[in-house]
């Protein structure tokens, strides 16, 4: 099977078959990234499909086939974030948002999937991009639209929370998250 860059090059040149093959090849990644943002299958599938549709629209403007993965992942993350904002707004209309995300309960053993679920989306997505796709901090920063420093910090917090949740329940940290999605002690990019 052709590599992603070669398929991307052919797709950008207008090869319809290559476009189909390319999307099929990256579909699992699209779904998993969308899931990492949304934490829910149906919404993730919806966001991943929409991201693929947008890719169909924009693939002709792709100049560097090697850059396709990061370009595509960013479309997926953006679409998933957009979907998350919509869902959050709908949920906010129904109930008051919580300022503090509860640490996972008192079970002695918590499997990783539950631990991942317990992470806030900004933490979960960087963990998935780092470990599942094995991207660098800089690549992740580009994809999620944050500074490299912020990504490093989110990775640090996410690892710390996962470790805590996967070890002794009593060590689970509680990290305050403001309503705007930034963490209380998260470094802010200098603007």
């Amino acid at each position, binding site marked *: 099977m052709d590599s992603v860059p070669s398929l991307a090059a052919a797709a950008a040149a207008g090869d319809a078959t290559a476009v*189909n093959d390319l999307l*099929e090849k990256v579909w699992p990644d699209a*779904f998993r990234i969308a899931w990492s943002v949304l934490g829910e299958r149906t919404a993730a599938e919806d966001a991943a499909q929409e991201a693929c549709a947008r890719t169909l629209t924009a693939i002709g403007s792709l100049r560097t086939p090697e850059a396709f993965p990061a370009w595509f992942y960013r479309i997926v993350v953006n679409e998933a974030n957009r979907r998350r904002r919509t869902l959050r707004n709908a949920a906010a209309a129904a109930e008051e948002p919580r300022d503090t995300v509860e640490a996972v309960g008192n079970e002695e053993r918590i499997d990783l999937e539950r631990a991942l679920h317990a992470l806030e989306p900004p933490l979960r997505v960087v963990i998935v991009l780092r470990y599942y796709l094995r991207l660098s901090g800089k690549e992740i920063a580009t994809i999620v639209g944050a500074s490299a420093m912020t990504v490093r910090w989110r990775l640090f917090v996410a690892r710390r929370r996962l470790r805590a949740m996967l070890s002794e329940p009593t060590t689970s940290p509680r990290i305050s998250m403001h309503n705007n999605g930034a963490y209380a002690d998260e470094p802010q990019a200098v603007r």
Partner: protein
Amino acid sequence: MNRKPSDNELGSAVTSSVCSLDVPAFNLAAIRARHGTRTVHPSTLTPRPRISRRALVAAPIAIAVVALLVSMPSVIAQVQGALKAFAIVHGETVPLDVQTVTLDQARAQMPFQVIAPAGVPARWAPTIHTLSSPASPESARLIFQYNGSGGLPALTIEESSATAKGPTGLMLSETRVVGGAASGHHGVAAPQAPQMPLIGARGLASSGKGDYVVRDVEVKRVNGHTAARRFEIHPLVWVSHGTRIVLAPTPGTLTQAQLQTIRAAMSR
């Protein structure tokens, strides 16, 4: 798991967990259907480039807001546009008189040598606007505006006198009316106030390094949803026959070779 996992163990566990997710079947038909019916959502296609505050403050350039109303692709061909222009004088916006003209009319009216665009892709046709102010007639400018597919701006060429000492900035605001004649409220946009200048201060652009134009494009759809996209454009600026020429392409529309071809053709 009663001990804290190492980083490697954590990574392996995350990978394993994510890979174990049951991925739904790839549904090309559903994606194609979305592609066929979806409307433009540029904010999710291209990330907004980060522009440092320093660059924004230091560069006495202008930025543009082109407020576009774009409807469904099927009616894009019926887009009608109206351009408004404002000069930036001591930080204040001063409305300019905008006239849509022919090339011959522009040559007769402009106080500098009008250089007809050349080397532009043959399928593109410009709309020509003169921008002038009664208070400062020597600072008149000429805009050649090319729209690409979908009605979005693809290339803007600005010409002005290389020696004029007029207003230092320019803002363009384009209101788009889509869907044919403006009957009722369907597809008609409220006029947009200019927000950012387009093409910058005289003299600076010829300094070469660091010159750029930021163009915000706001797309309003008939369902009322608004999406925004920001382009950072590094224009080509040069002086030819006493005319200062600013070539500002929207990213992705022209290659560097094409831009150099235009520059060479307009410098003869």
